């Protein structure tokens, strides 16, 4: 928690125009991520966590409307024009996508695709780029080096492709990396492998990272702070130990109890779809401690110097 945050957002909200109406995917997100730390956004599908990741790197399709401010090292990047923003993307801000299987160019060898980032942003020297790529692959524990670099994506397993993408994200030594669902679709053994490698990578490069996942185990092993997201809002924010060990918000408690090792106590009902959002606190239809107050008012989330661990709930 030292000095100027690498990434700071003020009342960030994102809407998508669909047909004549618009769908609120994300609203008033206030978050700051400090140098060398990992903020983990924990939430289920449809909670808008990926939307937040994409808005930092401006990867939204153009029917998206981004309101609010995002600061990168103190500079407001939301004010930049596309041209001014371009040099940042890939060099300073990196992104590791969620669907590893389809995010690699099927007709290009994985080595060339990772070299491309280095040659674009660091130095356009083939040999140095390939050396850097091989080092990263070794750091991420990929087998059969250096021949593997000439393989094509369809020759690799899911876990290996995921690690190639992590290597691609970090090959230009960016200041800030968004890692979106690194363990989705991987089985237990490979999941552990990817988590270990990402942690090791983050420590050696001291990179600042936004980690997006629905898996509590990933958050537990990699995150410094955790923001629990539900229906487009952050409902709880605090350090990893506080949020996981003494959760304040009923949804976080529900999430943790639903884990297999905690006995599968499910949260009843379904997460609301973006079109028919409940009024008041978004969780009230499914919340065991719901009172009239929750239905009428919409609880706020205020993060201050004094109060680090906060929840968006009247009964927190």
């Amino acid at each position: 928690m030292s000095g100027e945050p690498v990434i700071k957002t003020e009342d960030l909200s994102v809407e998508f125009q669909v047909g004549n109406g618009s769908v609120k995917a994300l609203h008033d997100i206030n978050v700051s991520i400090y140098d060398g730390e990992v903020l983990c956004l924990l939430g289920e599908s449809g909670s808008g966590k990926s939307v937040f990741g994409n808005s930092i790197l401006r990867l939204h399709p153009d029917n998206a409307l981004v309101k609010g401010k995002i600061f990168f090292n103190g500079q407001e990047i939301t004010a930049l024009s596309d041209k001014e923003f371009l040099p940042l993307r890939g060099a300073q801000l990196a992104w590791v996508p969620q669907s590893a299987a389809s995010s690699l160019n099927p007709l290009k060898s994985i080595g060339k695709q990772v070299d491309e980032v280095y040659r674009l942003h660091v130095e356009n020297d083939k040999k140095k780029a390939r050396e850097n790529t091989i080092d990263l692959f070794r750091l991420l524990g990929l087998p059969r080096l250096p021949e593997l670099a000439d393989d094509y994506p369809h020759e690799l397993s899911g876990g290996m492709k995921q690690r190639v993408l992590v290597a691609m994200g970090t090959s230009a030594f960016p200041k800030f990396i968004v890692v979106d669902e690194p363990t989705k679709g991987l089985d237990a053994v490979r999941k552990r492998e990817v988590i270990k490698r990402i942690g090791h990578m983050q420590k050696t490069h001291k990179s600042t990272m936004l980690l997006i996942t629905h898996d509590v185990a990933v958050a537990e092993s990699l995150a410094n702070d955790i923001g629990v997201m539900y229906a487009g809002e952050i409902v709880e924010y605090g350090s990893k130990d506080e949020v996981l060990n003494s959760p304040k918000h009923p949804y976080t408690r529900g999430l943790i109890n639903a884990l297999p090792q905690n006995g599968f106590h499910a949260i009843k009902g379904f997460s609301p779809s973006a079109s028919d959002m409940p009024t008041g606190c978004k969780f009230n239809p499914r919340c065991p401690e719901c009172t009239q107050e929750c239905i009428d008012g919409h609880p706020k989330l205020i993060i201050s110097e004094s109060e680090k661990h906060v929840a968006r709930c009247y009964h927190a």
Partner: protein
Amino acid sequence: MKKRRITKKIIKRVILFFIAMFVLSVVVFFLARLAPGDPLQAFYGEALDTMDESQIEAARQRLGLDDNLFVQYFKWLGGALHGDFGLSLKYKMKVQNVVNPLIGNTLGLGITAYCVVFALAIVLATVAALHEDDWLDKIICKVGTATYYIPSFWLGVVLVLIFSVNLGWFPSSGAYDVGKQGDIGNRIQHMILPLIVMIASHFWYYAYMIRNKLLDEFRKDYVLLAKAKGLTRRQIVWKHCLRNVAPTIVSIMAIAIPHVISGTVVVEAVFGYPGIGNLAVESAKYHDYNMLMMTVLLTGAFVFIASFVAQTVNEEIDPRMKVTKEIRW
């Protein structure tokens, strides 16, 4: 290992080629023979009425039309293997002597048109895809679709009306003026109008297909990642998308060969441009079987060779050797 794999494939292709040619010749041969209408009519024309029964019988015998079909076919096949494709009933001389001088014209017209059509198609498709849904893309689409729907024979007639009849810039028919056989300039002049018609009626069909394939490519996830890597829109298209669409373009070019040849046939007929196509039309009109056989086999051979070459090239470009997946049943 790679070299052995390619040669093995080529051998397989060559065998397939001969089988296809054999099947083609059988089909066309029997189609011709079984049809109504009397070939002698074409050979002798009016003279046939004056000949009495025995003379007609002798003529039929001389032309070998009397023995049963199978014998006729094998006699024809025997001759064909030595390069003798039988007599053209209309021109009253060996079929291949009629064909040989004309092959050059058709190939010249067809190949130039083919190259220009694809060059234009790829360029237009990329430009249209890059500016998807803005004014440039819309204009290209509208103009392209319009040219595609103008019938080539009608366009030919209109161009002849404007350029050769009124303005007199280009000759309206034939491959060269009498006596100027060798003069390349003259030949090109004769090819201009047919080429314009060929290109105008074909380029959009392929440009549209390539444009759609490019647009599909833009929607793929790796394009979003490339954007996140900091590549500009142009770089993404040059370095990634065009490269990935290449195999599809090659397969489109393979399918295009029969289309372009069909186009040549019509254009040759419209401009009276002496080539294989024109010959095919005449032989169909006057039931000149041997000539019909020759033209059909020639186009067939050309098409099969070209598509096999395209297929081999395509398999080499696309590294993902597709493993056949058992359909779950």
